[in-house]
């Protein structure tokens, strides 16, 4: 199999303003700006007839079709939700057919940026929403697989969208794509057969990475392979000012001890009440700060008024 592997996705000659026309379905998309690049393609913000959407373009038709299949089968499960997958087609580009699919565009930022901007308290809400997404996926028979900070977009209100379904795997099969530090096999905490607990484990590592990334990276660099074990992760959790509040949830997630993903979600919401000292749902830390400043200014103004 001296097979030519697909060239890297960065080789796609894409530019803002470019028009792409689908070969089979005939829809025309205008590329606006790149949103990110994954292992097997690029994601762009695009518009179709003035309406925004996200386009994922790849070089390998079979790879991309695998992702489209997951998205399509998720839709079949629930007709009440607005459609996520909008189109799947090929576009002629520089003399070749480039496969792509169009998704609903959901604004948001990767988890670590979200935590940086809104503070650790905001994790309480986002973590709950993440588990709700996993409940939907697991109940439809899929495991996300490659759950990590970059694949989870969070809107300012804490709503979560999962992106890049390249690792999504039918329950019972072997996980198709994973990232070492999020993988329970890497931590010697189980195999790589897709089950809901596989995603719980990654979700726990994701929040450790988001809140305590530096120590996590230092740990993975210094720990010899034979000493990798969930208890090393728990050591980080117990000694972190915010993660500490989630200790029970973290241990259950790392050891795969929830009865179901619904239970994981319920337990998260119970534990997360102790996270970050009462930043209420939807009000980010900086905004709470602004409110305080505004009140202080108002008080000063009032004082000045009365002093006249």
């Amino acid at each position, binding site marked *: 199999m001296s097979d030519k592997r697909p060239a890297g996705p960065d080789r796609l000659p894409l530019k803002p303003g470019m028009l792409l026309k689908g070969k089979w379905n005939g829809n025309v998309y205008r590329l606006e700006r790149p949103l990110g690049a994954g292992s097997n393609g690029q994601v762009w913000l695009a518009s179709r007839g003035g309406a925004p959407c996200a386009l994922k373009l790849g070089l390998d038709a*079979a790879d991309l079709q695998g992702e489209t299949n997951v998205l399509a089968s998720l839709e079949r499960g629930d007709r009440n939700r607005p459609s996520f997958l909008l189109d799947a087609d090929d576009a002629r580009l520089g003399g070749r057919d480039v496969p792509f699919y169009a998704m609903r565009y959901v604004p948001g930022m990767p988890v670590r940026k979200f935590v940086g901007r809104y503070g650790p308290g905001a994790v309480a809400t986002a973590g709950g929403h993440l588990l709700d997404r996993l409940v939907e996926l697991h109940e439809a028979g899929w495991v996300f697989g490659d759950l990590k900070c970059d694949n989870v977009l969070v809107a300012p209100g804490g709503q979560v969208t999962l992106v890049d379904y390249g690792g999504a795997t039918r329950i019972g099969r072997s996980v198709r794509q994973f990232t070492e530090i999020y993988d329970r096999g890497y931590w010697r905490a189980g195999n790589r057969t897709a089950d809901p607990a596989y995603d719980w484990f990654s979700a726990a590592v994701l929040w450790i990475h988001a809140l305590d990334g530096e120590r996590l990276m230092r740990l993975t660099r210094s720990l010899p392979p034979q000493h990798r074990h969930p208890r090393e992760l728990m050591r980080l959790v117990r000694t972190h000012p915010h993660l500490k509040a989630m200790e029970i949830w973290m241990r259950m997630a790392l050891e795969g001890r929830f009865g179901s993903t619904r239970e994981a979600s319920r337990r998260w919401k119970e534990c997360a009440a102790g996270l970050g000292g009462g930043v209420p749902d939807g009000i980010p830390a900086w905004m709470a700060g602004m409110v305080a400043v505004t009140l202080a200014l108002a008080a000063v103004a009032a004082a000045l008024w009365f002093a006249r």
Partner: protein
Amino acid sequence: MNQILLITDGHSNVGESPVLAASRALAQDIIVNVIGVVDEGEAGRIGAEEIESIARAGGGMSRIVEPHMLTQTVQMMTQQTVVGTIRMTVNKELRSLLGVESVAELPPPKRAEVVRMMEELSETTRLRVALLIDASASMRPKLAAVEEAIRDLALSLQSRQGESAVAVFHFPGEDPHVPCVLDLPWTDRVDGLGKLFRNIRMQGTTPTGPALQRVVEYFRETCGNIKGKTEYSLPPLRRDEPDVMESGDVG
């Protein structure tokens, strides 16, 4: 599906050419992948050309990596070889049945169906991977990384639905007549995978070719006559399905 993964850091210097041995393996439907391991910052010091030619002759791929990348590289190569082999088989089938060059030429609904089938085959096809490890003096400091990579691969194989097994050999043997030594016969469990390369004593040669040849024989002894047995076959794809061709309606 059968694969040999050769992990080495140097040139072969005794016995038949490893390139020839690899092409013999391929002739028996065993794909040969090769990883060259180098110390950090010493990428130039390895026989890149030999590594490439062995892989090319064996129908596989080659990479040169530092020890910390071994685990990922072993995973990637094994998986891509499975996926690539299935794709080649399916594309061949598509060519003869539908006259298209690859799955990319099919209309999206048909493509969805074929890709689902390819994934099914990749997951369920029987898979055997024999690892052949160069354990010469210069490789010694890298053997811990090699063991970890083997453990990790075995874990992934164990997680598949299809029947899977790994076997491990190292070379050279202690005796000039023994090109390589079997450390671990076919297994599908990682639990018992302890320290693999314990008391390795050997002479100073690198008989890569004869060692490869020996592993091919091992496949034959343990798996019977593997040539010609089709372990993955396609469900029938009919020429006259109405949604196959974009403008197929003539009547």
